[in-house]
């Protein structure tokens, strides 16, 4: 059983990364696991904690998002097929490639995503006067949708370059499968910068997607007998942080969410490149 200090530390770390994950649309395991390793945990023991935190955080955030208009479930299902196929392929390929090379690729991808998103100014999708949510949101057979911004205005959006997005999601899934992460830090920038989906929608949709990825990974860890009572504080922190982040995110302006995401991605890139 863990000491009280360890319990509090894991709850606090999981809560903070889950909150950041729910706001910026990143799973957060890619932050939590290296930090736990720095604190003396072995990577093999820390990985299930990361996935438990992501699964719990995604559950708490998805409960909040499902009541609103932010998460685009049709887009999430479409993109997650490619990402899951990529993850299975990545798990196969990971046997053949040097892990350190993969980590560097992953870190550089995160830093490039941070710079692209962080240096862009303005908003692609703007509120439309007179637009009604029922005319755009949750339409049969369509990926295009609409969401309501922090002032209650309806913002319709179109999903661009779907075939390229599917290909990049497959690549994101492959990198996630190779590195054992949920890949949210690649999925959200792909949706925002390639598919031109509003960043808040991209973040909420990615949270739904990483929930699927994390539950699959957790099932694998459970089958391998790697799940211990140490995941309990990570679950509690993930639930609290995920719910708080999902409640706060709709109230934040989109450019601020994009900046939060860029800072998080830059930090992730540095962590994965610098960590041994």
């Amino acid at each position, binding site marked *: 059983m863990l000491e009280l200090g360890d319990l509090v530390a894991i709850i606090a770390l999981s809560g903070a990364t889950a909150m950041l994950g729910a706001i910026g649309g990143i799973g957060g395991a890619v932050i939590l696991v290296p930090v736990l390793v720095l604190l003396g945990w072995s990577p093999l023991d820390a990985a299930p904690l990361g996935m438990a935190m992501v699964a719990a955080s995604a559950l708490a955030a*998805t409960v909040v998002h499902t009541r609103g208009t932010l998460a685009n479930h049709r887009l999430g299902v479409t993109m997650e097929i490619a990402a899951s196929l990529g993850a299975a392929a990545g798990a196969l390929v990971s046997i053949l490639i040097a892990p350190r090379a993969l980590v560097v690729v992953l870190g550089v991808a995160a830093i490039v995503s941070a710079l692209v998103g962080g240096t862009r100014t303005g908003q692609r999708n703007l509120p439309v006067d007179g637009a009604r949510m029922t005319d755009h949101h949750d339409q049969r057979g369509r990926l295009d949708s609409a969401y309501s911004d922090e002032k209650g205005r309806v913002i319709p959006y179109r999903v661009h370059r779907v075939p390229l997005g599917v290909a990049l999601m497959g690549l994101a899934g492959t990198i996630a499968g190779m590195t054992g992460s949920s890949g949210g830090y690649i999925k959200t920038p792909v949706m925002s910068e390639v598919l031109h989906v509003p960043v808040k929608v991209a973040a909420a949709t990615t949270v739904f997607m990483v929930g699927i990825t994390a539950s699959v990974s957790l099932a694998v860890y459970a089958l391998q007998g790697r799940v211990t009572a140490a995941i309990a504080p990570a679950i509690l922190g993930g639930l609290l942080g995920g719910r708080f982040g999902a409640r706060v995110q709709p109230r934040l302006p989109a450019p601020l969410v994009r900046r939060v995401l860029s800072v998080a991605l830059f930090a992730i890139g540095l962590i994965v490149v610098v960590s041994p």
Partner: protein
Amino acid sequence: MTAPDRRFSAGDLVAVVLGVGSIVVMTGTTGSNVVLAALVVVLVAWPAALLAMLMWRWIRQGDRRFVAATTVLFIVAIGAVLVSRWLAPGS
């Protein structure tokens, strides 16, 4: 901003159960191993339940394209578990 929907949903109930369960596991009381196993089952099963709910909504809307997409996602996710299990050390 539109007024948030504050109704207590099945998802909220699952989150509360997970939270209470994780506290029980942290205390290390008798039976906490059973609670831990239940926590893992819930964490693994909730996306499947959500996908089933979405699928049901899309069936009622007659959205055959996304019903098919969700079915494919179920198959791919189960396949990913099997592939990863197959690759696991010692398997």
